[in-house]
């Protein structure tokens, strides 16, 4: 079995022998972190494949019973030598039990032939007493042992076990590691196993969302055309059924799978573009949970612009329609009437489920799982398990979407790295520095032209010969080589092994895919030449090698190589410091994660103290107090030798680029200072949105969620004197101009309602909501709140509740709304009205301008890619975390902080950033100090030196646009790599037909 423990900050992960007592009936599976272990280790005995060859069926059957049923191995039978050889040829086996005396082909012959097919096959001969000598002979030609018939299981099983153990141990690997990251994920819910299969596997044309993704795919079963499975007819009317296996206590899921609403919207929208305008898509949902960044807009766009029909309801029966392959489904609509409708195709939006193996993995690693089977994490973290040094990434700790999974993965990785750093370890060995390129700057150009031969044929050969002759006319071309198919492994080997000692520039002409592929970059190392001296050009084989396009590109390439300038861009020296703007929980955690790696941090906070929103938050929904967590974080920040905190401070301007920024910081009552840093993390957070709706500001009885939280925090809420509290969700949220979901308000409402219910059970709490956004594991709190008697009323944005306040009344607040279930007006009187106004971002314009950060439509930090690069800006070296990205809870903010820290460390842990791009420089001997370039530069990168004698360029600010080079009357201003000669040469070459 497997054991692991922690010594001095290191885990030993290894296998030892099977416990002899439990061995017999134990099926093994092994955890996922055994690197490169074979299938055998992963699956145990069921993967150990034994072939039994005997002509007597009684022997075959009893061996099958002993080895298969009793011992758990995978056993296959063969009744003759010929059949055995066929089976060995079809699939490899671990062990063969082979009878010697068989009609047709005898055992020894079978052994000989089997060893040819599979030389490493272990063979155990079975022999009658009379043929023992033969068996001994068989051992000489490769059998491992023999058994004399008749034999008992006791004689056979130890021999088989020995072979199995030998195989199994060979498959194990012991690793000593400093930390473990678990990212084993979740599985899709399988509707067919539940109480209610929703027609899946029973009614034709009911598919899961995962299957539907395949149906839409260009590489799918129908080549991306949307055809229904039963009769391959085009789908014109499809329905998506939400919450299949989610929010369903009947199938043990008191959680929301978080992703299904969004993927259903996406699938419906994509299906509409694939299947045409007459395609009708219907999504039947319970709450449309568009809770993520820009999700709300996407949902509205899908409904209003793309015409996807959204129906609130839950489908209860799915049935085939007699005489056709359509699917009939029934649901109760929001207004109460029962709908029955036929669809060509029904898609079940299946949710996420914990992996069945997570529990046993967790047990072995001694980390805890929750009741559903997700990994339990520490309070305020989505990635720390209860055991130091073990972290979870992705969906393992609860359902999440792609962006959130990527964030958690980065967070888990950075935490693992911190663990190792704290224990005095380092990150993995750096790859060896690339071979330095030869200095050929003073040599005359000698070009090697390599042309790829794509197909064989005389026409091709003639073309290539013509090219050879033409290129050789140029004295700069030393040699021309033709190679076959560079895109294949052989061709690539031939290319990299081409002798380049006699030349100093290389031109490679190949087809488009190769020329622009990533592989071409590898040539620098192979040839020992600077990348600027290797040119790959695309040859258009379809139009013939004599075609104008090919001529132009090859000749331009040759000209460029001849005139290439060798000014070297040394790259940027990386400043080993990061600037974190914002001292809330996200900023602080980002700072700590980076500082733990030995990088200096400047933490700038605009207010007078650290803490941000956590300073007014009381406790989490599960009752964990927030103050100790905040105090602990602040004290870590204050004690950390690598962190410098600047409160009452603001960043007023910045310039520079990844690796080297210059930021100007203004501090109240102190001189302005400039900080040099290699990366910046923006964590300026957000605040509760202001409102004047529903009588807010006219009465003490109307408060926001934040004000209620503060009252609770400061013990100023006396629930005993109250009869009833009403809460209105989505105040000013999820509609223009604040058209996004703030994500935290629904759980906050539940938190406060449950808090009040626990303090005075008789207090009546009403929550008026549009869609309850209790994603992931928060769904259980929604269930709990209902169980505690909190009353929920759904309202539509076009029919909002009406509030009237009369301070003279006993209960001053009166709320009127239409209950959609009863379709009747309801009047609620309350002592207190709580408004969930959501979050507005606090991201000053000066910061976004200073660091070149773009904003999304709602003003939030625009990430480089919403899924795969969720915490970085398009501009390198600039990161965002916490609410700056989008509204989020404390653990989610901490995860983004750690993720941003991890991405920033990828830059900060280096010494130089490779020359990422071209910059301008000045030839001072030609410069007449006309200063036109200084006026022209749009980035302010040029300046006159202190003596006023030279124009200088700040390479950190220069963007290489070339404006300075075009205005310079003397060609004194140049952009590296774009000399006049090189550019004009390339144009001349391209024109030389």
């Amino acid at each position: 079995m497997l054991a692991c423990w922690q010594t001095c900050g290191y885990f030993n992960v290894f296998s030892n022998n099977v416990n002899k007592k439990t061995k017999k009936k134990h099926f093994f599976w092994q955890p996922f972190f055994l690197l490169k272990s074979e299938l055998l280790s992963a699956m145990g005995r069921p993967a150990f494949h034994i072939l039994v060859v005997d002509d007597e069926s009684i022997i075959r059957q009893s061996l099958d019973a002993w080895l298969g049923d009793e011992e758990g191995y995978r056993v296959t039978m063969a009744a003759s030598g010929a059949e055995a050889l066929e089976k060995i040829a079809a699939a490899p086996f671990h062990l063969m039990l082979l009878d010697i005396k068989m009609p047709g082909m005898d055992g020894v012959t079978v052994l000989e032939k089997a060893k040819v097919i599979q030389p490493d096959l272990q063979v155990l001969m079975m022999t009658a007493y009379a043929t023992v000598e033969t068996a001994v002979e068989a051992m000489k030609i490769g059998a491992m042992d023999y058994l004399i018939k008749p034999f008992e299981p006791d004689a056979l099983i130890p021999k088989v076990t020995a072979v199995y153990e030998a195989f199994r141990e060979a498959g194990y690997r012991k690793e000593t590691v400093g930390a473990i990251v678990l990212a084993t994920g979740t599985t899709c819910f399988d509707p067919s196993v539940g109480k209610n299969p929703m027609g899946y596997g029973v009614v034709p044309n009911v598919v899961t969302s995962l299957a539907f993704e395949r149906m839409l795919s260009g590489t799918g079963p129908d080549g991306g055309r949307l055809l229904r499975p039963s009769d391959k007819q085009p789908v014109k009317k499809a329905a998506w059924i939400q919450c299949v296996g989610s929010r369903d206590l009947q199938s043990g899921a008191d959680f929301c799978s978080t992703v299904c609403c969004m993927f259903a919207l996406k699938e419906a929208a994509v299906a509409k573009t694939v299947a045409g305008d007459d395609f009708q898509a219907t999504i039947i949902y319970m709450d449309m949970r568009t809770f993520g960044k820009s999700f709300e807009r996407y949902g509205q766009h899908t409904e209003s612009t793309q015409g996807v029909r959204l129906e609130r309801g839950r489908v209860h029966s799915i049935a085939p329609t007699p005489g056709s392959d359509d699917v009939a489904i029934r649901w109760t609509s929001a207004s109460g009437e029962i709908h029955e409708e036929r669809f060509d195709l029904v898609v079940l939006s299946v949710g996420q489920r914990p992996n069945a193996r997570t529990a046993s993995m967790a047990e072995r690693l001694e980390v805890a799982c929750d009741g559903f089977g997700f990994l339990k994490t520490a309070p305020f973290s989505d990635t720390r398990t209860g055991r130091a040094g073990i972290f979870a990434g992705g969906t393992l700790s609860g359902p999440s979407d792609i962006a959130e999974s990527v964030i958690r993965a980065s967070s888990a990785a950075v935490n693992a790295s911190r663990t190792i750093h704290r224990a005095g370890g380092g990150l993995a060995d750096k790859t060896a520095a690339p071979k330095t390129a030869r200095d050929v700057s003073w040599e005359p150009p000698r070009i090697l032209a390599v042309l790829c031969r794509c197909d064989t044929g005389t026409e091709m050969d003639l073309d290539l010969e013509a090219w050879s002759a033409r290129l050789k006319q140029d004295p700069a071309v030393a040699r021309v080589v033709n190679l076959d198919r560079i895109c294949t492994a052989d061709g690539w080997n031939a290319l990299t092994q081409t002798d380049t000692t006699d030349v100093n520039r290389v031109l490679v002409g190949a087809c488009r895919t190769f020329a622009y592929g990533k592989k071409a970059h590898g040539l620098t190392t192979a040839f020992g030449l600077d990348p600027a001296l290797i040119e790959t050009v695309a040859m258009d084989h379809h139009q013939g090698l004599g075609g104008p396009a090919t001529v132009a590109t090859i000749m331009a390439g040759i000209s460029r190589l001849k005139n290439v300038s060798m000014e070297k861009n040394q790259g940027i020296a990386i400043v080993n410091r990061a600037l974190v703007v914002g001292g809330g929980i996200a900023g602080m955690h980002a700072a700590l994660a980076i500082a733990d790696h030995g990088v200096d941090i400047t933490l700038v906070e605009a207010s007078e103290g650290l803490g941000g929103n956590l300073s007014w938050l009381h406790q989490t929904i599960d009752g964990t107090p927030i103050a100790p967590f905040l105090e602990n974080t602040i004290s870590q920040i204050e004690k950390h030798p690598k962190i410098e905190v600047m409160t009452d401070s603001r960043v007023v301007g910045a310039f520079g680029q990844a690796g080297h920024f210059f930021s100007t910081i203004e501090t109240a009552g102190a001189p302005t200072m400039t900080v040099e840093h290699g990366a910046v993390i923006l964590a300026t957070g957000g605040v509760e949105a202001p409102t004047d709706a529903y009588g807010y500001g006219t009465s003490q009885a109307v408060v926001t969620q934040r004000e209620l939280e503060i009252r609770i925090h400061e013990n100023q809420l006396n629930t005993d004197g109250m009869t009833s509290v009403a809460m209105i969700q989505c105040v000013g949220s999820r509609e223009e101009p604040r058209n996004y979901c703030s994500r935290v308000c629904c759980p906050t409402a539940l938190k406060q309602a449950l808090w009040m219910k626990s303090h005075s059970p008789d207090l009546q709490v009403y929550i008026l909501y549009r869609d309850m956004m209790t994603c992931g594991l928060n769904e259980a709190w929604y269930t709990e709140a209902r169980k505690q008697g909190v009353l929920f009323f759904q309202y539509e944005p076009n029919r909002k509740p009406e509030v009237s306040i009369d301070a003279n009344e006993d209960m001053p607040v009166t709320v009127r709304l239409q209950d959609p279930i009863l379709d009747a007006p309801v009047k609620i009187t309350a002592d207190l009205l709580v408004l969930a106004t959501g979050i507005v971002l606090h991201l000053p314009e000066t910061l976004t301008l200073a660091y070149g950060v773009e904003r999304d439509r709602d003003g939030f930090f625009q990430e480089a890619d919403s899924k795969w690069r969720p915490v970085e800006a398009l501009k390198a070296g600039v990161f965002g975390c916490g609410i700056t990205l989008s509204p989020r809870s404390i653990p989610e903010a901490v995860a983004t902080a750690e993720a941003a820290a991890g991405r920033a460390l990828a830059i900060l842990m280096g010494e130089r950033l490779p020359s990422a791009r071209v910059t301008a420089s000045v030839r001072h001997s030609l410069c007449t100090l006309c200063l036109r370039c200084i006026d022209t530069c749009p980035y302010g990168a040029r300046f006159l030196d202190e003596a006023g004698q030279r124009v200088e360029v700040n390479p950190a600010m220069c963007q290489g646009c070339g404006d300075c080079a075009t205005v310079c009357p003397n060609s004194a201003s140049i952009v590296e790599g774009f000399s006049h000669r090189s550019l004009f040469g390339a144009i001349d070459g391209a024109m030389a037909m």
Partner: protein
Amino acid sequence: MQPHSATGSPTPDDGSTALDHVRNMVSACIQCGTCTGSCPNALEMDLTPRKMWRLVILERLADVMASRTFILCSACYTCTLRCPRGLPLTTAMETLKGIAFTRREARHRNSRLFYEKFMQTVRHHGRLHEMAFMTGYFTAMKNPLTPLRFAPLGMKLMGKGKVEMGFGKSAATHLDALFDKVAEIERAAAAPLEKESHA
């Protein structure tokens, strides 16, 4: 008195404590309507099951009692099977019947008498004795027109020999002990409800 009310509808009376038991059963309801869609009798009901639960949650006992929905429940258990929250909906319907009969709601008099007489027959005869049941029910209804209303059905059943005539076979099958025990158990289980056995 609850601080909410549906304007224009009768306000709930104070007997709603009886409803608390049912309310606890269905408080986790998310009003998805799966029960309504699943119910084979929903079309006959004046309130759909979903509305019924909503009224129970809102403690509107008078509105609940005015409805025939729970009487029409044929205890097929489809809603219980399909409810995504796993709520005991059939039991809740049954309990509502109990409340209505306990309160001797005028609207449900016929149903109550039907149930009572049915169980009475079973108690005396050990099985359903059609003739005894009919006689008991019609007598209890105190309406001479009732037998006439059932006459066509009765003739049909008699024609097929489905109604056993006479009053015999009752002496040896006393089930009093069993019925008393069940009543005792039910009283204990539903003590706060003060629900009398409608058996």
